[in-house]
């Protein structure tokens, strides 16, 4: 059980009026969710919760002025038993009571991870969570951070070998099946062109981002392709972390993931893609990005390739390939016309899924690309 308190939204904020509860008792909440509106001296501000759970109790009525730190609600974590009668231990304490408690300060000190400024800076650059390094007594130093990345990112010279190894294993272990579909990209490109027209260059959406977004969108409907083959079974992943094949100029290829792409709209997907490519090229990937891919997307269209028959990265169970978009004859109703056409390919792990699943995926992908506005 935890207590949600009136947050401090600025150094000069002393209190705020709780104007409206956006949740009621018993409602599930997730991290980042807005659960109330408060009126501060600077206007009404939405306040968010910092954990997943269930609202056990709302402690403050609407239109109450609360100083910063005042307990507003009790939140029960999902796997915590329902406690009809909060014990005295769970009862929130007023800020003044909390201040009196000596353990409080000690607890805060313990929460702060000891890390050198240099380690902190490098970890931030690389997106490494200091907490993930599990240092509880010893301070974290630069060397630990550096070893974290060198361990996780294969160096270019070793990269070829790493790819070779993964691919050999894949070919040996995974019974691949391949499906392909011709996609009429004219509506999507046309729509994208319109969409980009009013945006500055740096805000333009690339077709690649639209394709990634489409794959992620469809994976929600066909989740069997998003996950791992582990312990002789398919483990579908809740998160959608598509690994994007990015060629490094020197040599090799790396497929870091856009993490939690399922949570992203089109703009966010583009932003994440740009960020990922930039960091990949400068060698600043996060370890989760190179370890937690749930599917791979390869877009070799830039190189003029028409069909991509990829090799699945184990333990993933699928790879989506996109070829070059080119002008091609296209039958529309009774007439033959020229359209922008692209080959979308799916490589699937036959142990995990079969052609039916793959076919459904490509079919939905094709459909959604005909109505791209849905991908916004």
């Amino acid at each position, binding site marked *: 059980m935890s207590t949600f308190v009136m947050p401090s939204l600025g150094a000069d904020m002393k209190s705020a009026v709780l104007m409206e509860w956006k949740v009621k008792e018993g409602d599930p909440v997730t991290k980042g969710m807005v659960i109330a509106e408060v009126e501060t001296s600077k206007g009404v501000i939405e306040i968010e919760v910092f954990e997943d759970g269930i609202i056990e109790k709302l402690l403050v009525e609407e239109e109450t002025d609360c100083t910063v730190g005042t307990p507003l609600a009790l939140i029960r974590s999902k796997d915590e038993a329902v406690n009809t009668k909060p014990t005295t231990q769970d009862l929130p304490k007023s800020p003044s009571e909390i201040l009196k408690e000596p353990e409080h300060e000690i607890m805060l000190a313990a929460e702060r991870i000891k890390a050198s400024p240099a380690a902190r800076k490098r970890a931030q650059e690389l997106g490494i969570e200091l907490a993930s390094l599990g240092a509880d007594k010893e*301070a974290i130093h630069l060397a630990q951070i550096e070893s974290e990345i060198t361990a996780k990112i294969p160096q270019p010279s070793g990269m070829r070998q790493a790819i070779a190894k993964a691919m050999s294993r894949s070919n040996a272990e995974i019974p691949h099946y391949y499906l392909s579909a011709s996609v009429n990209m004219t509506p999507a490109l046309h729509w994208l062109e319109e969409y980009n027209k009013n945006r500055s260059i740096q805000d333009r959406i690339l077709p690649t981002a639209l394709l990634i977004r489409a794959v992620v969108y469809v994976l929600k409907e066909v989740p069997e392709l998003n996950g791992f083959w582990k312990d002789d079974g398919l483990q579908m992943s809740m998160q959608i972390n598509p690994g994007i094949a990015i060629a490094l100029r020197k040599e090799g290829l790396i497929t870091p993931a856009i993490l939690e792409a399922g949570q992203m709209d089109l703009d966010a997907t583009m932003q994440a893609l740009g960020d990922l490519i930039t960091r990949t090229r400068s060698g600043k990937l996060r370890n989760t990005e190179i370890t937690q891919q749930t599917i791979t997307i390869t877009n070799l269209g830039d190189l003029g390739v028409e069909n991509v028959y990829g090799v699945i990265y184990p333990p993933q169970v699928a790879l989506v390939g996109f070829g070059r978009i080119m002008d091609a004859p296209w039958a529309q109703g009774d007439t033959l016309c020229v359209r922008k056409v692209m080959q979308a390919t799916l490589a699937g792990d036959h142990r995990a899924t079969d052609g039916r699943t793959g076919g459904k995926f490509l079919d939905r992908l094709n459909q959604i690309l005909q109505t791209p506005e849905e991908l916004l």
Partner: protein
Amino acid sequence: MSEIITYREALRVAMSEAMQKDERVFLMGEDVGRYGGSFAVSMGLLEQFGSERIIDTPLSESAFTGAGIGAALNGMRPIVEIMTVNFSLLALDQIMNNAATILHMSGGQFHVPLVIRMATGGGKQLGAQHSHSLEGWYAHIPGLKVLTPATVQDAYDMVGLALADPDPVLIFENSLLYNAKGALERQAEPLKIGKALVHREGKDLSIFTYGISLFKSLEAAEILSKEGIGAEVIDLRSLRPLDDETMIRSVRKTHRVLIVDEGWKSGSISAEIMARINEQAFYELDAPMMRVCSAEVPFPYAHHLEQAALPQPEKIVAAAKKLMEGI
């Protein structure tokens, strides 16, 4: 072509050459003439240049230091020798209130090209009124330049650099270095005032030091290297201006900092160095910075106590190891 001479001789040679070259240069101080200098630095100069240019003064630190300032204001290039840094406190008024301020107060009309040399440092069982390292105090004062030659070459070069400078320059000579021998290249291009010198490269930690502590630090670095720790030893050479650039460059390389200073810690130049690194390179630090300084006591007379009060190579080694462990 280099020669091997003592630190004392290097200073003497530099002064002698300067006086031969420039009639405006003269030396003034307690016992610099007939006695030959309390540390024998000016031995023989009286015979060479006469009592008009090698001027014995009474024990009037304030007046003869002020006289140096006055002479500098009036077109001369005086060198004032003060016997020890502790005695310089009697002249602090002149150094702080006149030498350091006149250029500014006069809106740039008058400058003070004065050189003040003095002995500093402990280790000779001279007790609490002759042994301190107060150069860091002087580095506090805008308008002054504070040089701390450690090597024979620097002792020679810095006299010339100081004399060529249009502003007051203080040279602090650790009295234990006077007998130290080293190579002198008379034609060498001297470094500029305010440039630190990397004496030894290393990748694991940076030791910032100056004066006699340079040699203790180098000794410590040698011991550390046998244990696989690469200490970069940097001689600051000038405490004002400080060479932030060289220090920060080294911090970016090693991420660990150890400062060795014979001065005390509290309110000191070592604290100033830490503050600057903190301001300019906080995110480069991989461990808290450390210091090896003199114990915070007026220097005791007894040998074992005095030695315990001073920075020593073993203390530097121990501090460096602790630093490498992340403390």
